[in-house]
C-alpha cells in the first residue's frame, strides 16, 4: 500500500523533527553555538522533507511560499513600516523603509488588494458583534477637502483623523517628520547590518532639506535641518488638518472616516465633463 507507506514516512519525519526541535531548544538554552547551528540546518532539511511528503499525498495543499519571499505578511510589513515613519507614507517609502530597516521586499503591487481586504475586514467586525476587531487597520490617507483616498498613500487607523488627512502642506510636513524618525532609527541601529542602508535612505531623503550636505549627512544634522524647516510650515499644516478633521467628524460616518467617502457613480454634471 503506497498510501500507508507515505503515511509511515510522514510520521517518521515528524517525530524526527520534534526530537530535533527539542534538541535545538536544549542547545540554545545551554549556549552551545556549534550544536545549535548544526541542528538548525537539520531542522530545515527535515521540514523540507515533511513538506514534500505532505504535498505528495495531498496535492491540494497550497505550497509554502518560496524561501526568497519574506515570511512576514504584507499587512505586518506595512504596519511596521508605518509605525516607524509615523506619518502617512507612499507605497514607495514603505517599500524603501522595509528594504533598509528589515532587508525585506514589499510587494507594492499588492497594496491595493491589502487596502480592500482591510476595508472588508473592518466592515465584518462591525456587522458581527462577536467578532474581534483588529487593533489597527491599514487605511488610505484621505484628501483634506473631499475626503477621498489619496492614491498610493497609506496610513494607520489608530492615528488621529487629522494625521490621516492630506492638506496642501502635508506631503512635505510628513516627509520631514518621517525623515526625522528614520534618522533617529538609523542612530539606534548603529553597529548592526541595517546601519548602512538606513543611513543611505536617511541621507537621500535628507539631501532635499536646506542645510543638509548632499552626501553622507549625519543623522543629527538631518534631524536639526528637518526641525528647522518644520518650524516654518508645521503650524499652518496642523491648523488646516485639524479644521479638516472637524469637518470630517461632522460629515462622515465611521467607515468613511477611515476608508474615505463612498465611491459612487459620478454624473457627467458632477465631473464637469459635458458642456
Amino acid at each position, binding site marked *: 500500500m503506497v498510501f500507508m507507506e507515505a503515511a509511515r514516512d510522514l510520521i517518521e519525519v515528524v517525530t524526527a523533527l520534534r526530537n530535533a526541535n527539542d534538541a535545538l531548544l536544549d542547545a540554545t538554552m545551554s549556549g552551545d553555538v556549534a550544536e545549535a547551528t548544526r541542528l538548525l540546518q537539520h531542522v530545515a532539511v527535515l521540514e523540507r522533507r515533511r513538506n514534500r511528503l505532505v504535498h505528495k499525498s495531498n496535492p491540494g495543499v497550497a505550497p509554502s511560499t518560496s524561501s526568497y519571499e519574506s515570511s512576514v505578511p504584507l499587512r505586518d510589513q506595512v504596519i511596521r513600516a508605518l509605525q516607524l515613519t509615523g506619518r502617512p507614507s507612499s507605497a514607495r517609502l514603505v517599500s524603501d523603509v522595509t528594504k533598509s530597516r528589515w532587508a525585506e521586499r514589499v510587494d507594492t503591487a499588492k497594496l491595493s488588494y491589502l487596502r480592500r481586504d482591510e476595508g472588508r475586514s473592518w466592515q465584518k467586525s462591525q456587522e458581527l458583534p462577536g467578532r474581534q476587531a483588529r487593533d489597527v487597520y491599514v487605511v488610505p490617507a484621505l484628501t483634506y477637502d473631499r475626503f477621498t483616498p489619496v*492614491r498610493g498613500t497609506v496610513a494607520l487607523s489608530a492615528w488621529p483623523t487629522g494625521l490621516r488627512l492630506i492638506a496642501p*502642506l502635508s*506631503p512635505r510636513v510628513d*516627509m520631514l517628520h518621517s525623515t526625522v524618525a528614520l534618522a533617529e532609527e538609523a542612530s539606534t541601529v548603529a553597529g548592526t547590518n541595517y546601519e548602512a542602508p538606513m543611513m543611505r535612505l536617511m541621507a537621500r531623503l535628507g539631501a532635499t532639506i536646506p542645510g543638509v550636505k548632499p552626501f553622507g549627512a549625519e543623522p543629527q544634522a538631518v534631524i536639526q535641518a528637518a526641525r528647522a524647516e518644520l518650524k516654518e510650515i508645521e503650524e499652518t499644516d496642523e491648523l488646516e488638518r485639524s479644521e479638516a478633521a472637524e469637518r470630517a467628524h461632522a460629515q462622515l460616518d465611521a467607515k468613511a472616516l477611515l476608508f474615505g467617502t463612498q465611491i459612487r457613480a459620478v454624473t457627467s454634471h458632477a465631473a464637469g465633463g459635458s458642456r
Partner: protein
Amino acid sequence: MTNTAGPLDSFRGEFLRQPLNARRVAGALEAPGCQRRTVLDAAAVNLDKLGSLVSGLPRDRQSPFALTRGNQFEQQVVANGMAEIVSLARRHLGLEIPEVRQHDLSASALREAYPGVTGTRMNELRVRLTRQRAEEMLTEPSQAYNLIRHAMTRLDFGGEIVYLEQDVLAFAVDGRIHVVEIKSYPCIDGRADPTKASATVRQTAVYVLSLQQLMVEIGAPPDVVNTTTMIVLPENLSFRPTAVTIDIDMYVRRLRRQLASVPQAAEILDGIPTGTGLPAHPADGASADEVAAAAMAVREALASLPPRFTDGCVSCPLFHHCRDEAELHRSTARLGSAVAGVCGNVTDIAAALDLAEGRRAPANASEAAVAATLARSAAAARFAAGGLA
C-alpha cells in the same frame, strides 16, 4: 473655431487620427512654413502611420527600456512629497521655504475622487481644475498651491483642441508661474545633448504659451507665466536629479506667431483640387497590393500639398518621402538649408550649376546676385582643388 474642421476632416477621411500633443505642436516650430506639415497637423493625421506607409519603412519607436527609465526617473523625482522638485525649485526658481503647498492633478490621482471619468471627460475635468487652481493663485496667492503635478491646459491648433500635460507647475507667491519639465536624458558636466535639449525647449514653449492663453482667459496678464522654465535631468551618469533654468521667451513668441498662422490650413486646402484626401489606412492583414495602392493614394494626396524641405525636417515622420521628392525634382533644398539659402530663388540644382559655371546668363537682378555668389564660390573651389593637386 471649428470652421476649419470641415475641410480638414474630409481631407483626413478614413485615415487614422492621432490627437495632437505638445511634442507635435512643437514640431510646427521645427518645420516653419511647411504647408504640407501644417495641413497634416491641423487635420490630426497620424503622422507616424502616414510616414511608414508612404516610405515603406517602419517608424523608429522609442525603446521600451528608455521609456521605463524615463518613467522611473520621473517617479523618483516626484516621490516623497516631490522632495527633489521642492529642493530644486528652491535653489533654481527662488521658491521660499513655506511655498511647498502641493497638489496632484494626474489622471490616476483624480480617478480615486472621480471614479468612472475617463477620456476626454477626464481631460476636461483636469483642464477645469487647473483653471481653478490658477485662479486661486491670482486671488489668494498665499492659500494657493505652489507645486501642481500634471496640470492640464488646452491649446487651439487650427480648430483641433490639443490637451497638454505639464510635468509640474511651480508657483511663487510673489506672482510667478514656472513650467517644470522632467526629462531623462543625462546632463553631463552641466551640458545636455543639444538636439534633445532643443526639442525639450520647444515642447516646453508649447506649455508656456497655452498657460499664457489660460491667464488671458481668466483675465490676468499673460506674463504671470514666467518664460524661465526649469528642466530637471539626471546628473551625469547617475539617477540623481539636477536642474537647469532656461528663458524660452524667444521660442514662445515664435510659436505664437506660427500658431496664429495655422488656421490658414483651410486656405491651403482651398487651393488644391476638391476631393483630394487620404485613403483609409490598410488593415493589419492587408496584402502587399493593397498597401501599395494605399501608399500611392497617399503620395498623390501629398503631392498637392507644397512642402518646405529644410534641415529641421529630419525629425518629421515624412522626412524620407520629402527628401526623395526633393531629390527627384533636383531641388537645392536637398543640399541643406545653407545651400538653399545661398541659391535664393534658384531652386533647381542644374540651373544653379549653370549659373555658377557661366553657362547661362542671369534672367533678372536676383538671379544675377545668386550667379555672382556662386561664381565666386566656384572659382574658390577650383582654386582650392588646383592648389591641392
